[in-house]
């Protein structure tokens, strides 16, 4: 549960009267919601590391893809899918 998973920001919307930015982030086909409050500079198209629904840093695309592939290979992405159903 301590891993952060890299994904790409597809779209951004504002909540709480514009105070909070939430993004749809895509992880190899799975789209989940993540808060962008910890990375105010993130924009659409950026790759971000997401941990339990909160984006914690911006990473470069190359790095994001490599690390996503690795996580998928060792089965760590299942966590995302599993929890989508519950």
């Amino acid at each position, binding site marked *: *549960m*301590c*891993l*952060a998973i890299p994904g790409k920001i597809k779209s951004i919307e504002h909540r*709480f009267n514009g*105070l*909070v930015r939430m993004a749809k982030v895509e992880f190899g086909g799975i789209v*989940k*919601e*993540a*808060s962008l*409050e*910890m*990375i*105010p500079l993130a924009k659409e198209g950026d790759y971000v*590391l997401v*941990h*339990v*629904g*909160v984006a*914690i*840093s911006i*990473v*470069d695309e190359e*790095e994001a893809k490599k*690390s996503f*592939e*690795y996580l998928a*290979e*060792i089965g760590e992405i299942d*966590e*995302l899918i*599993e*929890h*989508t159903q*519950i």
Partner: protein
Amino acid sequence: MKFLSEYRDADLVHQYVQEIQRTVTRPWTIMEVCGGQTHSLVKNGLLQLLPPEVRMVHGPGCPVCVTPLHLIDKAVYLALEKGVILCSYGDMLRVPGSQKSLLEAKAAGADVRILYSPLEAVKIAQDNPNKEVVFFAVGFETTAPANALSVLHAQRAGVNNYSILTSHVLVPPAIEAVMTDEDSHIQGFLAAGHVCTIMGLDEYYPLVEQYKIPIVVSGFEPVDLMQGILMVIRQLEKGEHQLENQYSRVVRPEGNPEARKVLERIFEIHDREWRGIGTIPHSGYELREEFAAFDANRKFEVAIEKVPESAECIAGLVLKGIKKPQECPQFGKKCTPQNPLGAPMVSSEGACAAYYHFANLLESVETM
């Protein structure tokens, strides 16, 4: 299951292994703090690639493993007796309490839900205004900002039926606890990359100085781990002790200032009990008084008796790197992932479970 040889970077890993072999001249004991790193080292068969001089021991960095038994009992009580909707991360629900795990409470009729994020729990509270929703907020510094944000979201949305049961632990005091234990023989550390993504590096400089140990902040992929181990060994062989950052592509020296601001606003540092280890001073977060309304501990008056741990479980020694899982007499006998005696056998990030699942990979290491 995939093996290391199938990864694209296998060659690079082997180059690091050769470099470690060339560098090392005598035995060294190194601890990786983070359970995710333990999992990766074991699962990818990295331990048996290391020369016999390099002994890796596994640290207390599994939040599920160090959450005290009586807190699990409290969560079970809230779910079963107080009728709250109890939510947490998947691993947490499987840990046995003294009577039941949360999943067993669910089987007995309690409303217990596995969530991916605490922010989802706030939505559940909004959708169920007549119910209390409690999120069992476990985690290290990486996870604390998300748990903190859930409180802020609830406050902003005027949700007053949401609270968190905190079990937040911090890495630097755990390193101190390990180093001050007289049975510990640890000479260097791999620190957890994602923790430092939030906290940055500042907290680690004093540890390096005080205990004269190399600390290398590392990622969790095979190449990261091997490079991190090499960096520790280079320092040890030269008699140096410095803080180095192997994971600089993700970890910035200052960490994530926004996240640190949120942590500072919501939490204050308290002494905390670590399962199997005992109380470590200043080692965890509790909600500040200002957020008492969102603190399940203050909201629900529940007196839970402390129950002694199974006398047969040596989790404390395993978590401090003094014993390896297979040195526990119950490992694989009375204690298995189906029937765990202690928490390190439950979570996939716990050392006992990692060794149990990948025992076939480890045979060669353990005969050394």
